[in-house]
């Protein structure tokens, strides 16, 4: 996986199972206060990645697509932290996001996982990890990671080291 520049990473996943495992690895590293954005078209692997991320983080019950509820909360037994899993697919933009109180989710330290982050770009913090999923041949998916802010650059470096070695 080529390292394009500090704070970025690219990887081609062979399919949904591998995408889930990649998410699992990241979930193990997610810290309180983290904001992780999952961007890409339907079927590109966002939910497979999110499912793994939830497992790795310790979410109960398993993370599923929240397309019909906008926000899922998963509590972790170890420390009582909650993982917020937001799906902005049905939001028309930040206006909609405010009318259901998305801004509230930013006010505590529970990690936030956001699908379709483009739709709420106006209220996202500048510091975040942005993961984009692209269709490749067949089941293959190109996944690009982009870290903004020092703490996310550190997170991505740790992820790269633990997941891909080196």
């Amino acid at each position, binding site marked *: 996986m080529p390292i394009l520049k500090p704070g970025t990473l690219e990887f081609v996943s062979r399919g949904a199972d591998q995408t889930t495992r990649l998410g699992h690895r990241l979930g193990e590293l997610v810290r309180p206060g983290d904001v992780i954005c999952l961007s890409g078209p339907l079927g590109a692997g966002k939910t497979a990645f999110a499912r793994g991320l939830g497992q790795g983080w310790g979410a109960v019950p398993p993370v599923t697509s929240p397309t019909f509820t906008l926000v899922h909360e998963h509590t972790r037994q170890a420390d009582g932290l909650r993982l917020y899993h937001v799906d902005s697919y049905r939001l028309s933009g930040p206006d909609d996001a*405010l009318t259901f109180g998305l*801004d509230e989710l930013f*006010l505590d330290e529970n990690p936030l996982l956001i699908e379709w982050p483009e739709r709420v770009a106006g209220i996202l913090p500048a510091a975040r990890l942005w993961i984009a999923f692209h269709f490749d041949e067949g089941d293959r998916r190109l996944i690009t990671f982009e870290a903004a802010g020092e703490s996310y650059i550190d997170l991505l470096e740790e992820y790269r080291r633990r997941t891909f070695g080196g």
Partner: protein
Amino acid sequence: MLLGIDTATRFISLALHDGDRIVAESTWETANNHTIELAPAVRAMLGRAGMDTPHLSAVAVALGPGSFTGLRIGLGFAKGLATTLAIPLLGIPTLAALAAGQPRFDGRLIAVLQAGRGRLCAQRFAWGADGWTPEDEAAIVSWEALLGSLGDGRPSLISGEIDADGRRLLASYGAGFGVSMAPAAHRMRRAGYLADLAWARFQRGDVDDPLTLVPIYLHQPGVPHP
């Protein structure tokens, strides 16, 4: 008697202003139970002051910036009260009320509240003939951007809700940027100051329309963010 209500953040503050004095005031941190706690607390405060809702002649509410749920609950409650009692409603900007509670300081005042994930909602004030006067609009900034904009030799006093990370940052780097932090009691938003500002407007007849008054959320659509 004017009732002042501030539910803009996790801190709730209530006050009763009789035109001369604050006769009751109460401020506490809620675990996001604004809905459950607000109405009984207003009832209890009125009772302690030997009054009931018919004694109220106006109601004032923190208009924002603030969190979505907190503002909606405060504004909904205040509008309901003003409409049913047929008394004037006044919306007071949250950070103006905070600034009104700060002592005079030879420099700029930065009034803040938490915007989440290391961000602040901040507004600058300068001391003028009428006390603290806004120098700009409230905006969402990171601590780094805020401190970076202050190293110009003019001393700054920062007050309001500052989380543990922010306090550590200020303790380590504040002095280098000429920034000092207000003591804890000044950082707390007290509805007595909001009620003071509202009373002055009430006396001038400068009141708001319950049908059209809308809150100012932390994140306004279309406002660029750092």
